[in-house]
């Protein structure tokens, strides 16, 4: 069988291409000229022009009142909203993550009832819009007017109006963390699944209990896989908190909405909100990269924790017999 060859270097091609034909005569020090790409600077210039135009249009527009933006950027109502937004994000994320770990372990359990419940939960909370869930918890009092605990024979132990306990703030935290748990559970589960089975076997073979194996061996390795998508989740959460305006949640977005519904300075105040969200998101990426470095340490191939010379392996072939029972 004949092996097909490319025709590039065949005789006809050489004849067409004078430089290739001169192959053997290429001087040793012939200077190399990189291929020119003249359209690159043109494309870059065009992009800059479009951006500059958009920015200019925005700034010269009378609706974008820079004085209003500066006035509200650090106003009390804004700062209080920022505080609530950060609080909601932190609490919902922490609670969501705790729920996620439990859900992921239930999902991975051998017990089909536990894993079924975890699946059902994820299906329900991922399958309905977060807006619907927020409103549901916000208006919980409509179909459960009272939260009460009564036992037969003892009578009512306590009873409180739902609206008193489930304030908009509590409703927001409930909705956000229950929803977050469903999403993060899948992330945690994929992290756990990324740790090879052999790691667990090795841990068990040195006498670790299941719990210790999970805590000392599985989780520290799973975290490496979990952090990047979790960083995404935190950023998403920060912005999703703006939805609590539908149940009067007093976060950044709600507060500014209240202001512009009276002053009609919609665009400047939305810009104020955007500036704050951008700022908070930018700050949040710092701990993420720190965590990634912290847990990725063992994979940094070139750097042992403390540098040692590589030549020391020469002893390898001669184990010291006498030291063993020392």
């Amino acid at each position: 069988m004949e092996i097909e060859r490319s025709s590039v270097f065949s005789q006809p091609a050489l004849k067409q291409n004078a430089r290739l034909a001169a192959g053997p005569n290429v001087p040793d020090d012939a200077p190399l000229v990189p291929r020119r790409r003249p359209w690159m600077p043109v494309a870059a210039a065009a992009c800059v022009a479009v951006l500059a135009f958009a920015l200019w249009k925005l700034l010269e527009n009378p609706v974008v009142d820079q004085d209003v933006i500066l006035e509200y950027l650090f106003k009390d109502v804004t700062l209080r909203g920022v505080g609530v937004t950060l609080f909601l994000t932190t609490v919902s994320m922490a609670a969501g993550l705790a729920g996620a770990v439990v859900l992921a372990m239930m999902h991975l359990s051998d017990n089909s009832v536990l894993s079924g419940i975890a699946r059902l939960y994820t299906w329900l909370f991922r399958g309905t819009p977060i807006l619907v869930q927020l409103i549901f918890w916000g208006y919980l009092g409509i179909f459960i007017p009272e939260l009460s605990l009564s036992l037969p024979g003892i009578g009512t132990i306590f009873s409180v109006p739902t609206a008193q306990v489930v304030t908009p703030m509590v409703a927001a935290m409930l909705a956000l963390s229950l929803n977050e748990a469903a999403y993060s559970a899948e992330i945690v589960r994929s992290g756990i699944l990324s740790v090879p089975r052999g790691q667990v076997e090795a841990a068990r073979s040195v006498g670790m209990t299941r719990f210790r194996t999970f805590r000392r061996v599985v989780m520290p390795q799973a975290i490496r896989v979990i952090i990047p998508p979790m960083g995404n989740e935190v950023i998403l959460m920060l912005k999703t908190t703006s939805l609590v305006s539908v149940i009067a949640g007093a976060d950044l977005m709600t507060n500014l909405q209240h202001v512009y519904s009276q002053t009609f300075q919609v665009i400047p105040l939305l810009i104020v909100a955007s500036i704050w969200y951008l700022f908070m998101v930018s700050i949040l990426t710092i701990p993420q990269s720190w965590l990634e470095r912290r847990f990725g340490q063992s994979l940094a191939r070139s750097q042992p924790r403390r540098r040692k010379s590589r030549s020391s392996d020469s002893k390898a072939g001669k184990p010291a017999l006498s030291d063993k029972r020392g």
Partner: protein
Amino acid sequence: MIANPLVSVRTLTKSYGHKVVLNRISLDIAEGEVVALIGPSGSGKSTLLRCMNHLERQDSGCVLVAGEPVGYSLKNGELHELPDRALSYQRRGIGMVFQGFNLFQHMTALENIIEGPIGVLKLPRAEVEEKARHLLDLVGLADWADHYPSQLSGGQQQRIAIARALAMRPRVMLFDEPTSALDPELVGDVLEVMRTLAGEGMTMIVVTHEIGFAREVCDRVVFMADGEIVEQGEPGQVLSAPVHERTRDFLRRIL
């Protein structure tokens, strides 16, 4: 017949679906004995080894180590599977070395070795570290304590894995094809460490394809095929003058 075996496998049976991997295996191993388990792949030797520390659950029969059923406790003539904590306690005494090393990837070599003694045996850190450095020295990697597994060659990782198992002061060491995943030039270092251990009187059960090692170091060679022990005896006899056709066939193919 061994009078007082350290490890005693009794009519151990295990199948995956319809495939019988272990068919009523019985095997006694004396304290200090070094036994090589050889045989074609799928013969059940790795499964047998994994049953010895209950990483695999058998269908019937049992493994006794120092007279205790591994993974079970005897109550009213029945073997009840141990709860997690008791099982973990039992495994302290049974060291295992895996084909794929399975070093904890997020810990340095030293941390891998001291994790068990500190976290499981609750020994004081200073004492454990000193012992660990002796072990590192024993496996010839004294200067590699602070390297992560990803920074070590396969042979170095396997030697760390052996040190990790030894740090628990096990009564018996199980080796599941410890050199099969290694480049040929790295096999020697690992075998050298195992030879040292054998010389120190450690009880070892080694699933291996290294016939040379089995011949020189092991006290007994057990040849398995299709879930049964076909033939066993002194290495010289089994490897040089096998009685069974299957053993002869296997040895012809791998030598």
